């Protein structure tokens, strides 16, 4: 378990939690120390993101551990503060606005529940609706507004109680792509003004990268990687994280060699290998190897390293190409997925690689499943870092 250290680690964490929830067939065990600002929990379905969030809210009781918000203990050592007595705001994938109340009364619900007089609560609600651009729709019922507007109202409702901890569970996942883009921008703007701690879950890296100050990756109930977005993008440490940030992640042993070999097992005697034979650094993979342009900082020969390759840096050929790229493999096409104008070609049979090419390229190469292709990657496109 890697505790999350705040980027500016001189502060005491604003939120300090150790969440253990034992459901028998699933155990969540997560430590979170976050500063003020936005922390994103990312992970595949079933990784425990939502459980972690409901545990922070007090909706799921902890088997063990604690939740401290600043100096206040919310959970742990026999304490269990009911959700309504914690200062949390919760926004879910669906807005979950109360259908029998207007947007105004939905937003005023929290202040009213916390004892504010009706008129004051409505004033506060109007203010919050205005901050998300919905003041014109205050009198509407949830069924009479769009999904994006409803989600903004849900955010206004959660913030109207001045929560110390704002929890967003996949807040954009139920929106269509266009609405999601606009709502993401609204959310980012609103969160900048929010002074407390925000924890959001997502499986969309764009949410995390645009909204969060730090990322926490969960897989099977455990933290697998933490860091700032820049750090995580540069140095993913699990296959899931790498695929999320869109990179190929390979793991192997760093080797210093005089001679460069290719996957086919034949010595690749290109003009370059002759000129820089003394500088030959490779990563030995299972059954293959990667040629590097330069050695990784902080790692020596014989050590385990991670290597990432941007899918866009993988070039595909139907016949063996004449290329300056020092990494060349003949691979099998396992599958092709299309998003927008781009296609991702999943390759196997020696090295597991994903290549991202245009749809035009797919057509030109006549790519089909099971076909053999040549894949080339320049040594300069391979980034390595210590494991």
């Amino acid at each position: 378990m890697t505790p999350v250290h705040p980027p500016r680690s001189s502060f005491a964490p604003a939120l300090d939690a150790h969440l253990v929830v034992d459901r028998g067939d699933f155990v969540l065990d997560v430590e979170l120390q976050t500063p003020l600002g936005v922390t994103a929990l990312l992970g595949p379905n079933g990784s425990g993101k939502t459980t972690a969030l409901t545990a922070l809210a007090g909706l799921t009781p902890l088997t063990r551990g604690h939740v401290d918000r600043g100096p206040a203990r919310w959970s742990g050592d026999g304490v269990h503060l009911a959700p309504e007595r914690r200062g949390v705001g919760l926004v879910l994938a669906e807005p979950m606005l109360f259908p029998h109340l207007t947007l105004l009364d939905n937003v005023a619900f929290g202040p009213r529940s916390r004892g504010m007089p009706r008129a004051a609560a409505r004033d506060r609600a109007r203010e919050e609706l205005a901050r998300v651009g919905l003041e014109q729709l205050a009198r509407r019922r949830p069924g009479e507004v769009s999904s994006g507007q409803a989600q903004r109202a849900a955010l206004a409702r959660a913030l109207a109680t001045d929560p110390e901890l704002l929890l967003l569970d996949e807040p954009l996942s139920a929106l269509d792509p266009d609405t999601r883009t606009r709502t993401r921008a609204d959310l980012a703007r609103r969160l900048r003004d929010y002074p407390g701690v925000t924890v959001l879950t997502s499986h969309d890296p764009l949410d995390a990268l645009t909204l969060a100050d730090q990322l926490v990756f969960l897989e099977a109930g455990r933290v697998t990687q933490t860091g700032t977005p820049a750090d995580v993008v540069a140095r993913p440490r699990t296959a899931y994280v790498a695929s999320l940030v869109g990179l190929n992640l390979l793991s192997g042993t760093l080797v210093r060699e005089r001679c460069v070999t290719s996957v086919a097992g034949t010595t690749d005697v290109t003009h370059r290998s002759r000129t820089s034979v003394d500088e030959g650094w490779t990563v030995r993979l299972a059954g293959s190897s990667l040629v590097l342009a330069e050695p990784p900082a902080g790692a020596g020969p014989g050590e385990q390293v991670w290597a990432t390759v941007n899918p866009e840096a993988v070039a595909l050929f139907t016949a063996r190409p004449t290329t300056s790229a020092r990494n060349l493999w003949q691979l099998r096409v396992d599958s092709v997925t299309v998003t927008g104008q781009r296609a991702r070609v999943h390759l196997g049979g020696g090295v597991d690689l994903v290549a991202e090419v245009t749809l035009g390229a797919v057509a030109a190469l006549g790519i089909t499943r099971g076909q053999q292709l040549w894949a080339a990657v320049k040594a300069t496109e391979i980034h390595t870092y210590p494991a």
Partner: protein
Amino acid sequence: MAPSSSWSLRVAAGIGLTFILLPLAALLLRVDWPDLGTHLAAPVVGQSLRLSAVTTSATMVLVWLLGTPLAWQLARSDHRLTAWARALVTVPLVLPPVVGGVALLMAWGRRGVLGGPLEAWFGITVPFTTVAVVMAELFVALPFYVVAVEGSMRGLDRRYDQVAATLGAGPLRTFFTVVVPMVLPGIAAGSALAWARALGEFGATITFAGSFPGRTQTAPLGVYAALEQDPQAAIALSVVMLAVSVVVLGVLRTRWLR
């Protein structure tokens, strides 16, 4: 031809509909329309209708006060005994009402589990009172309401409860400001069923509360008592009950039920 309009299905449906409508039509045919006013003026009619109005109203108030929280507990409790409680609540649905009346006597009668001490210590006797009528009606009507309302409460997304809790609403506030307003259609449907059941209650009432004009003789008991003495008054009373039921259910149907 669509399977739903096959002739055999239509014939069966027609027979079923006729079976329900024929006795109602026969009742209307037997009414002495010119003298209906006179028959309605018979003491048994006014007395029993007034008593039925009073007792079913009291029953509905109790049904709402007790049934709504009960339905909510059954809908949301994860306790392993909840399934048992859910099954037990429905027992009066299948129990012959007379047996219900006997059971009420065993509990609240002068020699009953609770009725005995109640009389010995406070001098309160329950059977043969209007209170006993309300209890008999409550006993048979409450399960109808609870089953209907629990169904719509269980269909209510739990995330509404969760969001309300994070907004600072305790369980009680959530219940009144979120749950109840959201299951109003279910409450209306359950109320209609429960009210109809309470209005028609006979077996448990005559067993537990007896039959005394103006005190425990509700409209169905009045029909039964009058049938052999003054059949036209019984028919007139039956027609009034039929009309009231049709109007109330009709209003509820257009207003609340699809």
